[in-house]
């Protein structure tokens, strides 16, 4: 186990370094010089030189990369000249909203998708399965914003049941101040997630049902209820661990779209606003954060999986 864990952590570190390198490259793709962007197009050469020296921009690129890495290691995500704020604290203030939104969307989806996928697997190719498959394929094929628009049109503009916008209260976890405003964003995320979670759970459960230990359990006369509860369900929980790790990029992306559509104050909306204002430091800060979350998510899932399923470690 420790060998496996060590190897997996090593991989994660290598990938994280790759992510920072990629973001560093992205940073240097920005047009014009940073000095002119900050000081204005009519800055004197002396002012530009002073700015470059002060910000380490006159060093060779490898040195700049190491400085950038050193900065990141200290939790410094850069400085937004447009907002006149440090990117780190800016995003940290908004992260609770994202965690609530995305966490709820993930949890509710799991509560729906796990039983649904299992039920489909045990009733494979019966009408129930076909209907459920049709629904989940449709959800799976729907871009999240299209789903969001349909929900707004139906439940908000049409039926006047729910507000089309999330709560706008400032402060930590401000969206909780207005729970009604949270319903549509969370519903959108839930449905998007159910679309592919349940398909995943279904196919994993079908594989489990074909395993020898399930056949043995049935052969020794164990009631079907116990076969499913004790053997199939427990092993399907492994897929939940997998989903947790795999879905980070999906959650981040659908989070961005949902925050944009429902005007949820969060990292995703901040990213979108930054992109429309060419606020590169914020964009790159969010990108580093997103990459780190993805790497950590998949590494943790792999480690948890290995801890739960010894067959994985022996490879």
């Amino acid at each position: 186990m420790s060998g496996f864990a060590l190897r997996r952590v090593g991989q994660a570190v290598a990938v994280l370094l790759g992510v920072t390198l990629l973001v560093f490259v992205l940073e240097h793709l920005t047009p014009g010089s940073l000095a002119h962007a900050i000081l204005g197009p009519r800055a004197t050469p002396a002012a530009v030189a002073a700015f470059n020296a002060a910000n380490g921009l006159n060093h060779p690129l490898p040195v700049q990369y190491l400085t950038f890495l050193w900065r990141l290691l200290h939790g410094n995500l850069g400085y937004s000249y447009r907002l006149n704020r440090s990117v780190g604290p800016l995003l940290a203030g908004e992260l609770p909203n994202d965690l609530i939104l995305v966490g709820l969307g993930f949890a509710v989806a799991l509560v729906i998708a796990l039983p649904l996928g299992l039920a489909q697997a045990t009733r494979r190719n019966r009408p129930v399965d076909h209907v459920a498959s049709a629904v989940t394929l449709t959800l799976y094929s729907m871009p999240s914003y299209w789903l969001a628009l349909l929900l707004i049109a139906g439940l908000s503009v049409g039926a006047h049941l729910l507000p089309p916008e999330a709560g706008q209260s400032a402060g930590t976890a401000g969206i909780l101040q207005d729970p009604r405003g949270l319903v549509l964003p969370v519903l959108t995320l839930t449905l998007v997630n159910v679309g592919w979670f349940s398909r995943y759970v279904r196919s994993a459960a079908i594989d489990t049902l074909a395993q020898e230990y399930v056949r043995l359990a049935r052969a020794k006369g164990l009631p079907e209820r116990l076969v499913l509860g004790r053997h199939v369900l427990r092993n399907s929980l492994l897929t939940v661990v997998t989903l947790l790790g795999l879905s980070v990029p999906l959650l981040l992306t659908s989070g961005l779209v949902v925050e944009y559509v429902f005007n949820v104050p969060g990292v995703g909306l901040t990213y979108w606003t930054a992109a429309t204002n060419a606020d590169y430091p914020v964009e790159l800060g969010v990108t580093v954060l997103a990459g780190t979350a993805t790497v950590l998510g998949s590494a943790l899932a792999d480690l948890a999986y290995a801890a739960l399923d010894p067959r994985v470690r022996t490879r």
Partner: protein
Amino acid sequence: MSGALRHDLLRHRLGVTGLALVALLIAFCVLGPIIHPTDQVHTNVELTNLAPSAGHPLGTDADGYDVLGRLMVGGRATLEIALAVAALATLLGALWGAVAGLAGGALDALMMRIVDTFLALPAVFVLIYLATIVQPTVPLLIGVIALFSWLGPARLIRGETLSLRTREYVEAARAMGAGRWRTIVRHVLPNTLGVLVVNATFQVADAIILLATLAFLGFGLAPPAATWGGMLYQGTSYLLDGYWWEVYPAGVLLMVTVIAFNLVGGALRDVLDGDAAAGGRGGRVRRARTAAGPPAPAPSAASPARSATSR
């Protein structure tokens, strides 16, 4: 037995339905503008937001463009980009995966860490960032979306290669002095063709969603170029005004197209798998991975990762 047969037929029927839908969509986008020619370049303030009528079967949008005609033109751009992305990404990914799988060792590890690095960055974020630096054009979008789409095929084909390289005929080819390239091009890749085709079909669907997401967030092709996502982006402003024709047709078309490609991909996989009962999209792909060995099997490698970045 008859149940399995019926299921086979049903699967097939779904595939046939998907294929028919794709054919219809292509006809709509390619032949449509010939039957229903419209000006999708010049705006016309006298024609803004008109309700559907005989002259404009689906009305006009805020710029005075005919919506039906715009759906055709936008659909064509969408399909062209998505097909090009799938082709490019599959080619690059297959070569990358085959080389890595056959090489093994340090080169394999390095190549796969590069794949992991790209996978770690959610494509939408990077694409938006790039769109703030340069105005997207069709070739640029194809290249950049492909840059984030070859990762799935690369992992898939690496896994396949790992299991293929121990087969007798590959070993025989190498024993007879076939070089690495010849082994890859003549023996490994042809045997992964089925997996590749299935994956490419799903990639078209994913590319369509990714492309539309970018446009919907306002980072798509510049006007007057039309895309379905861009039409949704513009039409959303009129959701409260009851101009349904500016929102729903584009959204429905987008959804139907993605469903159609997913149906075709699913049916292809079932048929090539010879096991219609393989279940969701997991089937063969996941099995190929678990059979393939390192690194950790199911978690980071199962097929849903492929589409996890695109929504």
